[in-house]
């Protein structure tokens, strides 16, 4: 299966910081596949998505290197006009907080109609039919009525459905979802995730899902990339990440999650805090918090393959041979 999206060595810098915020990040997304990018605040996962969509606030943020091939075009080399055509068309994005990404002055229907007519030649009536069809597909109750309502009249879950409807209105080949359910209650989150899985299965789109929730990762991902302080530290099939985690940060993340059954033990923690943009450490960026760090960690470890498709950026990988 050839990749739909191929990102290579993406780097993003911020004015005033010595080291890049996103540093040589590479990954693929194939058609029909879900890649989850997981990490904590400030790891660069959202910046990566924004860069792909051409939405970095520029300056202070600046893409300093890398390529992103999407269906044989480099997103970073496209003229702004062509990128605009792609965005919301073949490539769509869902954000965490629909209220800030929907236009409060336009009705839900008008916004979907606008999205449709920006990308295809059709009459207003045809676009409206399409909008109605999309609201039905995302299972919004009373869709005819909702078309004429403004975003503030909808609940959080309904707004997120409306945004999904808009994102999918032009049958995108690639969907980028940045924490799409983080602001939702758990039962509503389950509904929205369920919907996303169903719609993706129907359309065969590739999905890049950004999340901090390992439960969401386990439920949806085919492959996972774990990011820490601007770098991918481990990537592989979802089973490798949960059953054969190699990077000390991945282990720490999995271990910090409270258990849902069985004995309650004191939570293990990852000591210290994530480095700030201004103070990214040299070499391995996790080394200051890593119990296995040694002098060699002052050199950045390459993201090296340890089993097919499973790559780890750690001088101690495989961990049971080298860190025991």
């Amino acid at each position: 299966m050839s990749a739909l999206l191929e990102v290579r060595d993406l780097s993003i810098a911020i004015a005033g910081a010595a080291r890049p915020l996103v540093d040589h990040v590479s990954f693929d997304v194939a058609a029909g596949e879900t890649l989850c990018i997981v990490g904590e605040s400030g790891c660069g996962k959202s910046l990566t998505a924004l860069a792909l969509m051409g939405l970095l606030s520029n300056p202070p943020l600046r893409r300093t290197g890398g390529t992103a091939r999407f269906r044989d075009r480099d997103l970073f080399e496209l003229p702004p006009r062509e990128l605009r055509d792609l965005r919301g068309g073949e490539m769509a994005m869902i954000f965490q907080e629909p209220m800030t990404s929907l236009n409060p002055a336009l009705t839900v229907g008008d916004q979907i109609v606008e999205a449709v007519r920006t990308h295809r030649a059709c009459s207003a009536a045809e676009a409206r039919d399409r909008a109605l069809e999309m609201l039905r597909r995302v299972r919004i109750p009373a869709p005819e009525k909702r078309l004429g309502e403004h975003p503030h009249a909808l609940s959080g879950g309904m707004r997120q459905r409306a945004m999904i409807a808009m994102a999918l209105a032009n049958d995108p080949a690639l969907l980028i979802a940045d924490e799409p359910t983080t602001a939702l209650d758990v039962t509503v989150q389950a509904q929205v995730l369920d919907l996303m899985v169903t719609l993706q299965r129907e359309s065969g789109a590739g999905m890049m899902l950004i999340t901090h929730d390992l439960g969401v990762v386990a439920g949806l991902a085919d492959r996972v990339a774990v990011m820490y302080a601007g770098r991918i530290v481990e990537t592989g099939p979802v089973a490798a990440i949960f059953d054969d985690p190699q990077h000390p940060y991945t282990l720490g993340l999995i271990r910090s999650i409270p258990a849902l059954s069985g004995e309650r033990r004191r939570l293990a923690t990852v000591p210290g805090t994530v480095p700030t943009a201004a103070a990214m450490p040299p070499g391995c960026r996790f080394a200051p918090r890593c119990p296995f760090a040694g002098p060699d960690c002052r050199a950045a470890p390459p993201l090296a393959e340890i089993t097919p498709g499973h790559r780890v950026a750690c001088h101690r990988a495989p961990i049971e041979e080298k860190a025991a």
Partner: protein
Amino acid sequence: MSDVVLEAVGLEKRFTRRRLFAADTVVRAVNGVDLAVRRGETYAIVGESGCGKSTMARLLLTLMRPSGGTVLYEGRDTAGMSDRELRALRRDLQVIFQDPFSSLNPQMSVGALIEEPLRVHGIGTAAERRATAAAMLARVGLRPEHADRYPHEFSGGQRQRIGIARALVTGPKVVIGDEPVSALDVSIQAQVINILAALKAEMGLTLVLIAHDLAVIRHMADRVAVMYLGEIVEEAPADDLFARPAHPYTAALMAAIPIPETGARAPAATLEGEPPNPVAPPPGCRFHPRCPHARDNCRTDHPALRELGDRRVACHYAEELTLPGIAAGTQRRAPAVERRFALLDARTQDNDRGERP
């Protein structure tokens, strides 16, 4: 002395929205809640947006006057307390908020912030207050030199440690945490949970935890109350609630938890729709329009919260329903993962404060 330290009896809070050209609307945010928090336990209140759990927190803290019912502290009705008694109560009953940054004065140094509650309550001399605050700073895992810095210089996890230090410096008996770890990343969240657990044990605290993250609740709580549209629908010891929910809404919450393990089911959307508008709650059982088990009488008869073994449940059919919870062995780790955790243990000398020595 009674086993119960904090109690709500028939507690109600109505919010009225007055409108010029239409009838007033009344939201019953808390609708007849009875609960009793036992000394030394962690009692969690869980529910989704709009269920009334944050209003409950404010009522229990006596920061808000109830529309009906009472809050009893150590068996005494807080409504009848004099200003002097209320002041003493606030020393005993403290709060930790979700977002410590918005509750910390940005112009005060961290040392001054932690001393402030002592000053307000007139505890000790200036020198004693400084010493107490410094000791508290250490107990939440911050360094002495942090006392001279300002809130903006700290990360989210460190700010929450400051919030905890401020809440605990007066030596309270009961602490109410309103989503105390919700804004934190998972690795930082674990640090703060451990600090809270350690301090609770050291200081003999009773903890009331308002939260929405079910895994955090399972980890921290002894007993859990589940709220839906202003009412408690189930209350049970934490392990029982997770393993064998008795109320269909609790079961729906359990089914929706995303489970971090390989081959996990995708979170199941067993509920259609969203909680109804609290202005016009449905008649009968407030949950019936979304309940897969609802029958005719659920649409008309409001189920009372009644005792069933060592739990309380508000469902007409609690005895006959067998509802799935979180199965034993959920989130079991692969042997390789357990071996690597042991490797980490051997190397990590972290302590309850979550800081490296």
